[in-house]
C-alpha cells in the first residue's frame, strides 16, 4: 500500500519558461531510461526477489523513483506552463503542443510514447540486479547529457540532485547483488537463477 506525501523530495522553483529544455528533460519522465520505467522495473522485480532485504530495497528505490517522476513532471510543467504560442512556435515545441497542449505526457525526447519494452523483469535476482545497475548508469548518463544541454541554475539544481540519486542507487544495487551472490549455493559458481531451480 502506498501513501502520498504532499511535498517534493527536492525543491523545483523555475522562473524562466524554456520549451527547448522541457523537450529534452521530458525523456526522464517517459523515455527509455526515465523515472517511470525505473519505478515499474523495481516495483515489478521485487515480487520474485527471495531475499526480503533486497525486496525491501527494490520497494524503497521503486518508491523514490515515483518521487523523481513527480520532480521531472514539476520541472516540465514549470518550464512550459507560461509559454506563449509565439514562444511555443519559436522554441520548437509545436509538435508536442499540438497533441498535449502544455500537459505532461510520458514520452521520450524524440516523441516516442512511454513503453515498458525499455525495462525488464526477468525473475532471476542476479539478472535483475545486474539490469538495475545498468539502468541506474543509463539514467546517470541521461542526466549528464541533460546537464550539457541546459544552462538555467533553477533547472540544473534539481537535475544534479536526481543525477546524484542515480549514483547512490547504483551503489546500493551493487551491494544488493553482493548480498545475493554471497548466499549462492557453493555449486552454483556460474550464478544461475537462484530463485527458480526446478
Amino acid at each position, binding site marked *: *500500500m502506498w*501513501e502520498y506525501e504532499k511535498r517534493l523530495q527536492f525543491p523545483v522553483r523555475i522562473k524562466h519558461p524554456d520549451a527547448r529544455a522541457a523537450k529534452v528533460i521530458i525523456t526522464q519522465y517517459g523515455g527509455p531510461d526515465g523515472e517511470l520505467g525505473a519505478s515499474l522495473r523495481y516495483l515489478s522485480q*521485487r*515480487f520474485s526477489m527471495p531475499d*526480503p*532485504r533486497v*525486496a*525491501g*530495497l527494490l*520497494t*524503497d528505490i521503486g518508491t523514490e523513483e515515483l518521487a523523481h517522476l513527480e520532480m521531472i513532471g514539476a520541472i516540465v510543467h514549470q518550464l512550459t506552463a507560461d509559454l506563449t504560442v509565439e514562444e511555443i512556435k519559436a522554441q520548437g515545441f509545436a509538435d508536442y503542443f499540438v497533441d498535449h497542449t502544455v500537459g505532461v505526457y510520458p514520452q521520450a525526447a524524440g516523441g516516442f510514447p512511454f513503453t515498458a519494452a525499455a525495462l525488464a523483469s526477468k525473475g532471476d535476482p542476479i539478472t535483475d540486479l545486474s539490469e538495475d545497475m545498468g539502468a541506474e548508469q543509463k539514467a546517470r548518463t541521461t542526466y549528464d547529457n541533460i546537464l550539457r544541454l541546459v544552462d538555467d541554475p533553477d533547472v540544473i539544481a534539481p537535475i544534479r540532485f536526481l543525477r546524484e540519486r542515480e549514483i547512490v542507487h547504483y551503489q546500493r544495487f551493487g551491494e544488493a547483488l553482493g548480498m545475493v551472490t554471497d548466499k549462492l549455493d557453493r555449486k552454483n559458481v556460474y550464478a544461475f537463477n537462484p530463485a527458480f531451480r526446478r
Partner: protein
Amino acid sequence: MNAGMGNESRENDRMRAVSFALDDLRLYLDTHPCDEEALRLYGDYTEERRKLLASRTDFSGSVNAYEPNLANGWDWNDGPMPWKGDK
C-alpha cells in the same frame, strides 16, 4: 512469538480496516470538504490508526519507514513481505 499470533492477526485486520476507512473517506472529503460527519470520522480513524501503530506487536516489522519502530533495530524488511500471502 506464537502466543500472541491471535492478537497480531486481529491488530492487522483492524489496521487494514481503519486504513481503508481513511482511504475511502479521503476521496469523499476531496469532493465534500465541508461534510462535518466525514471530517469527524476522519479524525477518529486517524487517532485510532496512530494508537494501533504505537501499540503494534506484530513481528513483520515497521509499517511505515517515516515512523519506524527502532526498538528492535532496522526491522523494515523483517517478516514476510505483504505480497507473499500465507507462505
